[in-house]
């Protein structure tokens, strides 16, 4: 491949392998990005199916479909599949596709490691699914009924399915760390001449911060589950009180990972919004520097407030006060991001294509989730809310708009660039409305259920909670099934449609919009000069 004299036609066809080898041995960032996105979509449907089963069971009181252990097994798997299988790989898919295009790099810095990062994922997903299935076979042991937090002593007593799960977490962790290293090296070493760090698109900044967060916290989770594995099989007592250990130690290890993980899921979507909102407001992003500062502040403070997930374990007054104040302080940089988005839209020439609809919905609904987050951060209030459906409603309002809707916005925003075709805007808007209305019908009533005292992670409930649960379950069916429309829109766009221009959106700015839609197999073989 020539770095200087490649024609457009050659760039499309030269070096592009065919058949299954193209995907299995791929070192091309676009192909690997596509693989990540397909994998994430598959896992979204698996995780979504488990969520719909959970909501079907909760449609009315009593035990209808699922026995208590299977119910908790589904709750565990739903969370792990959605977090590790759907949201993180989807964000990695966007990063793979877009980062080299945005910074003017020919590919990721370490293409072969990129291939490895992806292909570890199907193996990890198989382990994860086996952890769900194994208990149904003779000698398979008990089901995983711990929830995604895997707290001991319950997790040390579960059967062999827990070992599959621990192995899956190790593999997922290795994949995440390798991908993060690749992204950091690409962003620091591969930018086009003239593109300083403070000229990078915010999406790239969001991934730089996310990648550092991943490297800082994933090894701690790996350490925690390794200690769990040792307690289960090698006679250690890290978390066993009878042997001098303490199960609360695992909670600290888990949440030292688990809380920053929330920002790992959120920040890439914040990056997407920082591209989408200026495009459809036809204005530059308001407060670029403060946006970068806010992301760094969220990441830094987010690392040191983990124990707000553990207020009820009996910490000292000083400790809970520190964690409460720290947690509430996070709302300052998060609020700054929201104000920046609103200020960008202010007096902009706004249009409401599907990505922008999702962006506006995120600003509204994520802010609502943030407000219930402040409620939960206050210790005396949290003592009442903890382990109730209020918490379930809160984190779904944070993670669905904050992470998943942001990824949807990104997919609709860049789909014309990836496929070379404009998606059907009418269907896109229909998907948005069904999706968002279904989401709100599902999760808004859960606030009331929680405040009325309905506990989470229990298969049955008191008769007094019936009506709100019925509404929530009906909403979940609408919400879940709406994703079939997303799948249809994506397939339809890949197969054909109105030809997308280089600059698919009138207000779009950035290097990625200088390239053909779809871009050539190899792009930026001659680095662009940034002024």
């Amino acid at each position, binding site marked *: 491949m*020539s770095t200087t004299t490649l024609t457009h036609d050659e760039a499309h066809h030269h070096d592009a392998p065919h058949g299954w080898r193209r995907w299995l041995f791929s070192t091309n960032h676009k192909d690997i990005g596509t693989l990540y996105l397909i994998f994430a979509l598959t896992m979204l449907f698996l995780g979504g199916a488990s969520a719909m089963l959970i909501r079907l069971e909760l449609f009315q009181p009593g035990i209808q479909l699922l026995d208590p252990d299977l119910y908790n097994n589904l709750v565990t798997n739903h969370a792990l599949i959605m977090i590790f299988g759907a949201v993180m790989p989807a964000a990695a898919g966007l990063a793979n596709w877009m980062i080299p295009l945005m910074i003017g790099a020919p590919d990721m810095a370490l293409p072969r490691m990129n291939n490895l990062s992806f292909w570890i994922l199907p193996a990890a997903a198989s382990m994860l699914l086996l952890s769900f299935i194994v208990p149904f076979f003779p000698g398979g042991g008990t089901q995983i009924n711990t929830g995604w937090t895997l707290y001991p002593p319950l997790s040390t007593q579960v059967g062999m399915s827990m070992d599959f799960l621990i192995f899956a977490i190790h593999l997922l962790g290795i994949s995440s760390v390798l991908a993060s290293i690749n992204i950091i090296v690409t962003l620091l070493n591969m930018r086009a001449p003239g593109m300083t760090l403070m000229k990078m698109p915010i999406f790239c900044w969001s991934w730089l911060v996310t990648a550092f967060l991943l490297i800082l916290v994933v090894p*701690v989770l790996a350490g925690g589950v390794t*200690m769990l594995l040792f307690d289960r099989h090698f006679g250690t007592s890290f978390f066993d009180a009878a042997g001098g250990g303490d199960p609360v130690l695992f909670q600290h290890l888990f949440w030292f990972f688990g809380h920053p993980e929330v920002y790992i899921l959120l920040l890439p979507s914040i990056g997407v919004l920082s591209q989408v909102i200026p495009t459809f407001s036809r204005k530059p992003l308001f407060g670029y520097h403060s946006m970068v500062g806010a992301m760094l502040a969220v990441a830094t403070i987010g690392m040191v407030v983990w124990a707000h997930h553990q207020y009820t374990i009996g910490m000292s007054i000083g400790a809970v006060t520190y964690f409460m104040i720290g947690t509430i302080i996070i709302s300052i940089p998060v609020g700054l991001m929201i104000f920046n988005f609103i200020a960008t839209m202010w007096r902009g020439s706004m249009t409401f294509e599907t990505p922008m609809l999702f962006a506006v919905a995120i600003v509204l609904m994520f802010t609502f989730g943030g407000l219930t987050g402040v409620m939960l951060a206050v210790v005396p209030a949290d003592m009442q809310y903890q382990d109730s459906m209020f918490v379930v409603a809160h984190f779904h309002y944070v993670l669905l708009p904050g992470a998943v809707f942001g990824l949807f916005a990104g997919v609709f925003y860049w789909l014309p660039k990836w496929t070379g075709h404009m998606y059907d805007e009418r269907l896109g808007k229909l998907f948005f409305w069904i999706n968002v209305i279904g989401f709100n019908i599902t999760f808004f009533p859960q606030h009331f259920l929680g405040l009325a005292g309905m506990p989470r992670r229990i298969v049955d409930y008191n008769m007094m909670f019936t009506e709100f649960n019925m509404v929530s379950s009906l909403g979940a069916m609408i919400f879940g099934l709406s994703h079939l429309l997303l799948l249809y829109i994506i397939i339809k766009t890949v197969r054909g449609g109105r030809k997308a221009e280089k600059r698919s959106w009138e207000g779009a700015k950035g290097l990625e919009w200088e390239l053909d839609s779809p871009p050539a197999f190899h792009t930026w073989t001659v680095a662009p000069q940034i002024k």
Partner: protein
Amino acid sequence: MTIPEYQTPELRKKNLRLVWLLVGFALFIFFTSFPFWTGLFHLVGNQAAG
């Protein structure tokens, strides 16, 4: 799979140097998580008890 031409020896060396630094950092956090967290936990536990 061959090394693409855009990966000049200088760039490749620079990339790999940063990779090993980051790998080392991740391994450092993994291995220190055992003594660090058990130590911190006991320290805080002792202070709360005493």
